[in-house]
């Protein structure tokens, strides 16, 4: 009885399910037993209770028994069986199928007609109907050499770029592809569409499946990632975007600790269902009720996932922007010299008069060098030296007090004046490392020459604020209640703390500060197990941009209720950081005013002129240091002050040379510097951590930590790597030795071709799933899949070339009688096409189809946008793009498509429902998209030069159904068309030119069931 679902009575009674030989009487006994035993609410019958206690297995025995489950055994090496009907059996696949039919005397259906074959194959392989020309060419070729013509057809379709679109959409159901995170605010998953394009390219390029698996699980960790030859972007890393789909709450993970655990749980569930058809997530609270999956396994894997951060990642390789950045660096060198030349003269010209212009009624703040000048200007000439000495003493005192305050109250988390210090970076703006003091940023627009002279620190905008950058800390240990960032920045850049990988929580401050500022984010306690980290980002790197919640201080835009591109229209976004500290006191570090010490060095000046000379001297020294690229932080502060006070000019045309260099700099920056290419993904940053086993899944009850690892039932070793362990996990899953990986994918592909898998539950190969209808066939194909280099295209080709795929859709009498479910595949099970195919077929028939591949998604149609929920109004026809390019939003599915069973996007859905409800009829009858497509088609029809209703009807049949009408159909449709005409009061002579009439005809064709069927 090994391998039998104990309580799946359906299977027991299904004579076509393979099983050890049992008499029907025994099955009845067993079924009766199962129906009692399976229903715990009835209690265990007394006779079984006794047996229960006697035969109670230890857990070890139970687990050993569970490990015997069919899907956990290596694939059997079954040879295709011998069949009587050699002629039928084109391939190994056919032999397995035919043998089973022969065993129960089921006669297979005849071969399908060529018109059916090309329609079926084209819809199955590309999701689009063939054109009438393609059909005619095929029918002609088929009449000469049926097999040759069909093979050529299949090869043509496999080579079509639309093959990738079709199979990508299937795959996206499995990984719960979604372009927004739903919940309340429906945040974007920014650039999720790059993942869609990646999958399309992967299927078109026939990337070996094991490699695709590796890229999904750990594409960011591969030593030699694939790069897209077209744009040199990192292709492998895009696979990891699949972790980021599904529902993500924006709730604070500190307040609602479960949020982050639920996100990781959903990732774990998707990963194990997608690649292993295993319901590991069922072991969150207890060992799996039926399968060989331990709670320990769940937490071993949860540790892997929680150790992986959710990040936006830059795909650009080191070569991207290399030349323009090199050019900008060189220009900056020249600009330094040119600016220094202007400034040198200006600095030496500083005198008392220069300051007269700057005088103000109120005293400037102590930190302003003008404070001293202001004080001097209020005393008589003889008091100048004394006042100066007093000011010097004050400054020294204030400096000392500030230094003492800072020393006492702050713990430095990071000081970027001396490198990144173990923090991780991403983005082109941080490619040059941290900056030495004395660097400067050129103003890339406006009338200024310099955006800022930079002290030592980390800056994304040293070359251009079009370059992106993210900086992330190692896990932080909280010892004090606040984190303060010493920053400059603007245009939607952000500083924040992240807890428990909840990328949408809001422990953040937005940056809109031209001058150095300390921004403080509270650091709540009791959060060590949420593995917090600090992060600084330009908007490119920000997974929650645009920010519909705002944060009350976001001066860039307040709450952001527009699309990503609307808010990113100005691509300039930038930040710089010097230090990050932790503290309990209610204020950030004080300014230590060290730059002023220089002013007060030496004997006090005795006159205003002498004082002015002191300033001039400092200015000259600062400019000289700048010219020599040796300016320290204090000199940088002086330069910034001198520029701000207009003592040094900052005009983009300060000199002809400056003007020329700025012009060239801006030209290169504007023209040659490309914007970053981002994707949502995950990253290993710093050491991973072991997840504590949570008793009954209760996050408040952490038990012993579990080492990173995979399923014990697959004899997986504990992982040894320091990071998340995703690399090791990828190797264990993307392996020919893993008994599930190949079987699961072969079954999925089988389902995509035939409509139903050999295992009807593609996401669950466990006890709650179904068992394979043809286990040897499944194993045979799985082994072959691996042997052929995990080639999806080769497998698809074999299945589509099978005789079984080419059968007519009508069952023979023996099949209807003995195999009504068509488990034996004696005929092709015609099926309703998926939502996307229906919509795409309408676009194709109407001539509105834009067959362009790839690119950002189109917002689905909506009458009015709902900006609060980030649901925007797209065009009714989606610009004619295929349905795979319509944005897949969690909060609301695309209107027309949703009537035809779209997946939910929250959990893996390897098999779509194909319900049949009045809502579908209502959509076909009344949806504005359908009506618009009928209008478009009618527009083309009335221009076709057709001379009779019959010829036009003939053409419509060819376009929509790929076949000519029967005489009865011609008459029936013709009659209806005449009726449309009379209802529109169109006279017979005006009929052929009436768009209204042909719109109705087109609309009727879209409503034919045959139009939405894969025959």
């Amino acid at each position, binding site marked *: 009885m090994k391998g039998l679902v104990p309580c799946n009575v359906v299977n027991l009674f*299904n004579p076509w399910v393979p099983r050890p030989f049992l008499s029907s009487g025994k099955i009845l006994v067993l079924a009766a037993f199962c129906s009692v035993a399976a229903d715990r609410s009835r209690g265990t019958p007394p006779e079984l209770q006794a047996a229960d206690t006697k035969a109670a297995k230890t857990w070890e025995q139970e687990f050993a028994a569970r490990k015997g489950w069919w899907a956990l055994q290596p694939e059997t090496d079954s040879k295709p069986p011998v069949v009587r009907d050699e002629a039928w059996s084109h391939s190994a696949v056919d032999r397995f199928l035919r043998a089973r039919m022969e065993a129960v005397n089921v006669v297979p259906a005849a071969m399908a007609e060529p018109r059916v074959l090309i329609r079926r194959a084209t819809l199955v392989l590309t999701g689009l109907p063939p054109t009438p020309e393609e059909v005619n060419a095929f029918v002609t070729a088929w009449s000469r050499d049926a097999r040759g013509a069909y093979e050529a057809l299949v090869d043509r379709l496999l080579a079509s770029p639309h093959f990738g679109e079709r199979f990508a959409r299937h795959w996206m159901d499995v990984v719960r592809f979604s372009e927004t995170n739903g919940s309340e605010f429906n945040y974007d998953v920014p650039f999720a569409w790059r993942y869609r394009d990646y999958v399309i390219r992967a299927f078109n390029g026939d990337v070996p499946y094991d490699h695709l698996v590796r890229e999904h699980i750990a594409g960011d960790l591969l030593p030699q990632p694939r790069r897209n030859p077209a744009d040199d972007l990192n292709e492998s890393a895009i696979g990891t975007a699949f972790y980021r789909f599904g529902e993500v709450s924006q709730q604070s993970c500190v307040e609602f600790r479960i949020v982050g655990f639920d996100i990781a749980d959903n990732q774990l569930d998707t990963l194990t269902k997608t690649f292993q058809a295993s319901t590991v997530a069922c072991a969150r609270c207890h060992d799996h009720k039926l399968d060989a999956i331990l709670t320990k396994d769940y937490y071993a894997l949860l540790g892997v996932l929680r150790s992986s951060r959710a990040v936006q990642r830059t795909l650009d390789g080191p070569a991207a922007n290399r030349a323009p950045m090199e050019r900008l660096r060189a220009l900056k060198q020249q600009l330094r010299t040119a600016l220094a030349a202007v400034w040198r003269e200006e600095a030496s010209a500083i005198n008392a008069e220069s300051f007269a212009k700057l005088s103000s009624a109120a005293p400037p703040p102590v930190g302003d060098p003008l404070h001293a000048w202001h004080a001097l200007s209020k005393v008589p000439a003889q008091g100048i030296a004394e006042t100066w000495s007093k000011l010097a003493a004050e400054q020294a005192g204030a400096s000392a007090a500030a230094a003492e305050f800072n020393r006492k109250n702050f713990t430095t988390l990071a000081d970027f004046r001396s490198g990144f210090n173990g923090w991780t970076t991403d983005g082109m703006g941080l490619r040059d490392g941290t900056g030495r003091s004395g660097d400067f940023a050129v103003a890339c627009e406006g009338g200024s020459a310099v955006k800022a002279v930079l002290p030592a620190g980390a800056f994304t905008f040293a070359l251009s604020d079009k370059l992106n950058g993210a900086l992330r800390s190692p896990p932080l240990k909280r010892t004090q209640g606040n984190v303060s960032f010493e920053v400059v920045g603007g245009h939607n850049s952000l500083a924040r703390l992240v807890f428990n990988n909840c990328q949408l929580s809001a422990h953040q401050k937005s940056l809109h500060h031209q001058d150095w500022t300390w921004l403080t984010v509270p650091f709540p306690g009791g959060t060590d197990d949420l593995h917090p980290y600090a992060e600084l980002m330009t908007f490119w790197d920000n997974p929650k941009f645009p920010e519909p919640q705002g944060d009350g201080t976001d001066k860039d835009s307040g709450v952001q209720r527009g699309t990503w591109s609307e808010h990113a229209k100005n691509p300039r976004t930038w930040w710089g950081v010097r230090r990050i500290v932790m503290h309990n006191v209610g204020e950030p570090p004080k300014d230590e005013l060290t730059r002023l010490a220089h002013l007060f060095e030496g004997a006090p000046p005795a006159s205003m002129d002498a004082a002015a000379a002191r300033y001039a001297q400092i200015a000259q020294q600062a400019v000289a240091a700048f010219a020599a690229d040796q300016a320290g932080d204090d000199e940088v502060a002086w330069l910034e002050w001198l520029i701000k006070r207009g003592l040094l000019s900052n005009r983009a045309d300060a000199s002809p040379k400056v003007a020329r260099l700025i012009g060239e700099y801006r030209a290169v920056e504007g023209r040659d510097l490309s914007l970053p290419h981002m994707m949502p993904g995950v990253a290993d940053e710093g050491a991973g951590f072991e997840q504590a086993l949570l008793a009954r899944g209760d996050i*408040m009850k952490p038990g012993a930590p579990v080492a990173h690892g995979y399923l014990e039932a697959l004899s997986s070793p504990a992982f040894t790597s320091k990071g998340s362990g995703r690399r090791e996990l990828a190797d264990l899953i993307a392996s020919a030795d893993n008994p599930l990986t190949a079987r699961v994918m072969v079954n999925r592909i089988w389902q995509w071709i035939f409509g139903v898998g050999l295992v009807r539950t593609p996401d669950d190969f466990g006890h709650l799933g179904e068992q394979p209808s043809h286990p040897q066939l499944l194993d045979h194909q799985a082994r072959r899949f691996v042997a052929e280099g995990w080639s999806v295209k080769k497998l698809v080709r074999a299945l589509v070339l099978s005789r079984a795929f080419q059968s007519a859709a009508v069952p023979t009498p023996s099949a209807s009688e003995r195999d009504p479910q068509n488990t034996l595949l004696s005929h092709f099970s015609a099926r309703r096409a998926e939502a996307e195919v229906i919509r795409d077929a309408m676009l194709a028939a109407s001539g509105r189809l834009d067959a362009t591949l790839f690119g950002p998604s189109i917002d689905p149609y909506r009458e009015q946008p709902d900006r609060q929920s980030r649901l925007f109004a797209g065009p009714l026809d989606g610009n004619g793009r295929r349905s795979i390019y319509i944005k897949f939003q969690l909060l609301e599915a695309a209107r027309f498509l949703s009537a035809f069973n779209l997946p939910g996007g929250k959990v893996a859905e390897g098999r779509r429902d194909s319900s049949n409800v009045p809502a579908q009829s*209502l959509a076909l009858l009344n949806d504005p998209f359908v009506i618009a497509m009928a209008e478009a088609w009618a527009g083309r029809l009335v221009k076709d030069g057709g001379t009779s209703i019959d010829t036009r009807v003939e053409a419509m049949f060819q376009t929509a159904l790929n076949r000519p009408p029967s005489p009865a159909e011609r008459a029936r449709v013709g009659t*209806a068309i005449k009726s*449309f005409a009379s209802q529109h009061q169109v006279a017979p002579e005006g009929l052929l030119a009436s768009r209204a009439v042909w719109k109705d005809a087109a609309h*009727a064709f879209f409503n034919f069931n045959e139009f939405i069927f894969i025959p």
Partner: protein
Amino acid sequence: MSGLSPLPEPQGPGRPLTRRSLLQSSATSFGWLAFSALQQQQRASAAGAFTQGPHFAPRAKSVIFLFMDGGVSHVDTFDPKPELTKRDGEPSTVNKSRKWVKSPWAFAQHGQSGAWVSELFPQIATCVDDLAIVRSMKADLPIHSTGNFKLHTGHNLAGRPSLGSWAAYGLGTENENLPGYIVLSFGHLPAGGSEVISNGFLPSSHAPTLLRAEGAPIENIVPADPAALQRTKLDLLRGQDTDFAAQLGGSEAVESAIRNHELAARMQMLVPDVLDESRETKATRELYGMDDADPHTRLYARQCLRARRLVEAGVRFIQVNCPPGRPSGVWDQHDGLKKEHEKNARHTDRAIAALIKDLGQRGLLDTTLIVWAGEFGRTPHAPKPDGRDHHPEGFSVFLAGGGVKGGVVHGATDEFGINAVEDVCDLHDLHATILHLLGLDHERLTFRTSGRDFRLTDVAGRVIRKILA
């Protein structure tokens, strides 16, 4: 029923659906004759597989199933446990780390029957004399998805038909212009997903139709064409589709699509009319709480009112879901019990009581069975004071109207509310009882697939006779 047209004539309980009554009820709708002819064809071809019953005189014509997803706490609503209050905070006998948790709500006796109801449901409490409260309900597994499957389909796993589909299959519809099985939803599905409410292996004409609380109740319900033009198209479609089905050697999918097209066309005409709330009196709106400030209360009131109108229109089985809360189920309070159970009760209490009273006033309660149930109850013990976990071993549901004895409390749990100990009923028993009241013998209501006759109640189910009127 004034103002509602074209609604069917009221049919007496147990009156079989005859061709004559159908003609009467649908005579004003378009294409009736064509549809009727089609229907005859289908009946002939499907050899009686279309509907089955009734097997005997029904007590109820319609069912309104008020589904409380997530699991309502029985010891906080209909099953008071003084012992629990006494031992509050002490380690439970089940597990030492779990402590007894007393109900944060006071109980009182209500009505002539003196049935106990907690202060969570002040309005429902005024209806106790119409209710049969079953305190000894038993489900199976403490998991939402399997619990929802079991409650709806009688089976722990996805794939079986739901109660509403069985009812529609068993009795057909009283109104051919509307689906027989309607789920009044808030746009989200319960744990377990669409298969919880699906028609499983039953013909897809018995699949549920979802009616949203907000916006257009059904997408695309407004016809794009004038009626006559649409009729021309529908006739053309029927011809083409019938040929296509024949080409495939008969196809259930195509045949049900043909039926759906006809049904959709008729729904277009009728749904807006059936749902038109503007004809309700101010008193009725008030009764349900249609103008409550809280949108969830308001929308739940609307769905309950619609349930009544759909009963009037002859819909066989109407499920009313709860407004959304936690994804696992709105009543799933592992924590925040006090706050969230109160919130859920506030959203639903008034409208449910209004529904019972309104049906009563209109003389419809006798022929309408109301079932109030979640997939399980909640534990009387918990690791933390303000929450309870899943509890299938004993919990409460109630039934009302449609041949149910009012003012009855049936069965009991033990002193702590853990195990059902007296007159224990399981979900099969509940299903058998519902079918019984509809005039269906749960042992005879079968559908053959995969070589076996399937029942909603599998090999179990006993009608709970003590609660029958």
